């Protein structure tokens, strides 16, 4: 992305009058404005104080569930991604094969299937899970969601981490070795700081994807933001249940996106001239 910023060219002089693309452009913008106004006026006309009073607290609570689900899964996924990334970069055939299979499985199958597999699939292995004392964990739908999400994001994060570490030139390792640093020190003090700058944007994208994907847990009885919207719609058959939730997700994702861009600008200041 920063490469494209480097080759910014002087903008061509602006066309005057009404060329065709401007007409199309204005028409499309008008369409969006009309669409937005339509939604606003619909929400205004369908304004239902009872609906709001009944479901707004539930939405807020659901938002809390969504955020904690995403936060916990992201952190667990980050921890889990380290050994996977290590495996992917390892020269050991078995280790790298295993890590490859792990990543391929979790990236190759839909998260919805993985979530069902954990929640309903593991649910049918209750006696075995009870024997090893894991059932108390899988009993809870929220935990099942976290489990599936953490495994899933670990696969993606491992690839991000690997890509970032491999993006650091080999000379950095050699230079550190010649200074007498051992491998772990090199990784921590030299490689990771450089790699994380590269990884920031993909990590940010992964976070946004997780926020969006978290809506899936509504299907396994977790009352997250989406779960509460489904409930509100089921009880009222009022489409504004989904419009409100769409607005909340949109705002959340936009805030995250801008925050990530801001952080990226801050930490790459030293790279700009």
């Amino acid at each position: 992305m920063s490469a494209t910023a480097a080759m910014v060219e002087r903008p061509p002089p602006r066309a005057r009058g009404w060329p065709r693309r401007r007409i199309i452009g204005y028409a499309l913008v008008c369409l969006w404005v009309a669409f937005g106004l339509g939604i606003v006026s619909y929400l205004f006309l369908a304004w239902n104080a009872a609906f709001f009073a009944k479901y707004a607290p539930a939405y807020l609570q659901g938002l809390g569930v969504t955020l904690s689900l995403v936060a916990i899964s992201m952190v667990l996924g980050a921890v889990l991604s380290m050994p996977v990334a290590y495996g992917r970069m390892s020269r050991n055939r078995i280790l790298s094969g295993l890590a490859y299979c792990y990543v391929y499985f979790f990236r190759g199958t839909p998260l919805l299937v993985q979530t069902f597999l954990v929640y309903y699939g593991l649910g049918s292995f209750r006696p075995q899970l009870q024997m090893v004392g894991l059932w108390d964990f899988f009993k809870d739908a929220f935990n099942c969601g976290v489990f599936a999400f953490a495994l899933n994001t670990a696969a993606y994060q491992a690839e991000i981490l690997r890509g970032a570490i491999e993006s650091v030139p080999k000379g950095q390792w050699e230079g550190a070795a010649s200074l007498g640093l051992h491998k772990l020190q090199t990784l921590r003090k030299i490689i990771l700081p450089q790699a994380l700058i590269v990884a920031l944007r993909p990590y940010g994208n992964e976070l946004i994807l997780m926020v969006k994907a978290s809506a899936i847990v509504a299907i396994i009885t977790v009352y997250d933001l989406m779960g509460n919207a489904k409930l509100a719609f089921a009880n009222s058959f009022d489409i504004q249940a989904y419009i409100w939730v769409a607005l909340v997700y949109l705002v959340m994702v936009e805030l995250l996106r801008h925050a990530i861009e801001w952080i990226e600008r801050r930490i790459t200041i030293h790279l700009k001239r």
Partner: protein
Amino acid sequence: MPAQSIWTLLSWGPDGWLDDIAYGVIVTVLLALATLPIGLTIGFFVALGKQSEEPSLRLAANIYTTVFRGLPELVTLFLFFFGMPILLQHLIRYFRPEATIDVNSFFAGMIVLALIFSSYASEVFLSAFRAIPKGQYEGGYSIGLSKWQTMRKVILPQLLRIAFPGLENCWLSLLKDTSLVSVVGLAETLRNAGVAARVTKHSFLFYSLAALVFLGLAVVSSFATGAILRSLGKREAQR
């Protein structure tokens, strides 16, 4: 109901569920294939809008990607599946009060997946556009090609080649996202596996099967895209 063996459950025919799941796989593949051309077309035009000199076009295209990349796929799907019929119904009632509109889940799924696919594909197209040097356009104009001809004969072939790896990722996401349409009742792979799991109570078996199906589709796609890439490369070399 006697306890059935796993092999009966996975058999073909009235007692087994394999035929239902195979049917689901066909629906999954059809849905993804039907979405692809629509998504690619919209994505291409959105990318064109994004790199246009006209600010209003850029704005319209940016709103498009912001909205459809910002909304969770599931929310977009529910909004369309439940909202669109109501909207269309209101519009149509003005002309034909007795008409009913049947927005089936395949169609709703196709539209929603195309919207999502195109918003991601437009980013891929956009960076591919940026990778094509200006000289290519100028060369096209200088030999007397019109704007549209230059686009079609000079830019598009290069664009597709540059965008291919990115589009491959979009295709894999699309394949996985088709599973979401099961939630609004389209009888695709996951949905049929879910029905089987519900009726037979063998959840793990059938959801694993669904996972394997998607894995298999991903493997087949990567072979296919590999073959396409090779043939693209060959044509490149022949010149």
